């Protein structure tokens, strides 16, 4: 049984936003990244999974059950952290968390205390008085307090300082080790790269690619940077498999996918003064996906 199984999910609004034929699945125990720029359809997909909005066509299953039909049952196992957290302002943090816990039929008091300690969250304060980052912490504790089997995070790191981000990621990894599946949506690639096993890339409401992070990074692309003593003929490197070709002063840089030998031959044909071959980071690969059709 898969943790999430999305099948040709489509949501159209009056205007053009929405998602079209989104299909991918997430295995149990996986940390799955969901990346795309703002407005690409990440939140729409996630909100459909949570039955906050209803699909126009297609369906999604969570732990083998239809996410609309069995919504209340499924949600017992889901912890959700929205990108922007707003809670009942006039409540104290502890009261809100207790209210949240009261929806699940288990005692979460000690768990709340543990999580709050890790995240350095003051439980006695009023939510109204909290900074954005601290509100986010309330959201994190709220999302994890019932030890959900599926954690859905929609751009969760905004407002957290790097130190807290690290603690948060450690928490997620710990939950993952205990068996939780994580769907992590973000437009910040480095954090997806750090955490996820596989990733789905969404663009303008459609899934462009579902791939292992390692495949994306290692197998496909090399980043070349070549420094040359003489004037550079840009066209020399413009062969198939080359992307993001750029010439700046005496250096040329590009991403290359294909037989590395043919590229080495190409480089051997010209006089070079220096050469760097690197693993590109996800950001660069990602930009490539997005720019391809322009």
């Amino acid at each position, binding site marked *: 049984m898969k943790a999430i199984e999305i099948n040709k999910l489509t949501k159209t609004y009056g205007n053009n936003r929405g998602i079209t034929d989104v299909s991918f699945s997430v295995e149990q125990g996986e940390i799955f990244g969901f990346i795309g720029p703002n407005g690409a359809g990440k939140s729409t997909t996630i909100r459909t999974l*949570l039955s*906050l*909005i*209803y699909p126009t066509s297609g369906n999604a299953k969570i732990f083998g059950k239809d996410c609309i039909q069995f919504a209340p049952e499924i*949600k017992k196992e*889901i912890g*959700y952290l929205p990108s922007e957290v707003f809670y*009942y302002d006039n409540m104290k943090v502890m009261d809100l968390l207790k209210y*949240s816990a009261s*929806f699940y039929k288990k005692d979460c008091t000690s768990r709340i205390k543990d999580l709050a300690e890790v995240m350095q969250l003051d439980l006695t304060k009023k939510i109204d008085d909290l900074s954005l980052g601290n509100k986010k912490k309330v959201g994190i504790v709220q999302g994890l307090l019932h030890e959900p089997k599926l954690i859905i995070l929609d751009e969760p790191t905004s407002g957290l300082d790097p130190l807290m981000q690290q603690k948060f990621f450690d928490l997620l990894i710990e939950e993952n080790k205990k068996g939780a599946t994580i769907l992590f949506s973000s437009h910040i690639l480095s954090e997806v790269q750090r955490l996820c096993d596989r990733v789905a890339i969404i663009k303008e409401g459609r899934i462009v690619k579902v791939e292992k992070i390692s495949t994306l990074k290692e197998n496909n692309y090399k980043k070349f940077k070549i420094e040359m003593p003489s004037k550079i003929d840009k066209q020399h490197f413009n062969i198939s498999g080359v992307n993001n070709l750029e010439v700046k002063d005496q250096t040329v840089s590009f991403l290359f996918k294909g037989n590395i030998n043919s590229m080495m031959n190409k480089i051997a044909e010209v006089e070079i003064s220096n050469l760097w071959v690197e693993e590109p980071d996800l950001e660069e690969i990602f930009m490539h996906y997005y720019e391809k059709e322009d």
Partner: protein
Amino acid sequence: MNMYLHELKAYRKSTFIWTSSILVLVVLLFSMFPSFAREADEVKKLLEGFPEALRKAVGLEVESITSLLGFYSYVFFYITLCGAIQAMNLGTSIVSKEVREKTADFLLTKPVTRTQIITSKLLAAFTSLVITNIAFLIVAITMASYDKTESFSLSQFILISITLFFIQIMFMSLGVFLSVVLRKVKAVLPISLGTVFAFFFIGMFGATTGDEKVRYMTPFKYFEPSYIIKNSTYEWSYIFIGLGFVLLAIGLSYYIYGKKDIQAV
């Protein structure tokens, strides 16, 4: 149950404020009655000087105004106005505040159905109104027995008083329906005040022209105290229409809210 208690707590303050305001209004109005009764002839003469249209519009009946129930029927109109605003506020708030305070995501990602959410909220609002009405009834009866110059029918007095609750339920249902239908309610008060006063003026207008049909259009005119005093019962056709309206508004609210897309903020 947890949602019901949470909601009830959330309305605690507003229920307290509205209930106290209505009670103060009741005490104030009743404290005027003794002087009315004492100088009955003077008052009647004075009121007869008012244009008939005006008297009809505000529901003044010169013959009965100096009796306790007559006086009560007149001032009760203003108590229902206050009560209607409270109920409409409450009804409009219960769903729209989740959107406005952006807590809809919190509630709707919990393992509950939307039907359960609406039910808890409605029950909490209902409870608030019951509390208000019980307090109102106790204080009104106390004031009336304190004020009375001659004996009056307690059962008629209670029959009239209870219509506050009926009117409130109607306005609450209307509020709930509006807040479910409208995409986003930025502020509750303009909507509730606007609606309540619209119905209030429809009622005044209808009373001036004496058009019976207009009565069906405003909850304020469903229960005429003069009819209740005369017959010791309600006009049942209005009760059924009111009940039908409430059931329809609430039923549609459940249906629409169940189908609604909850948009990201």
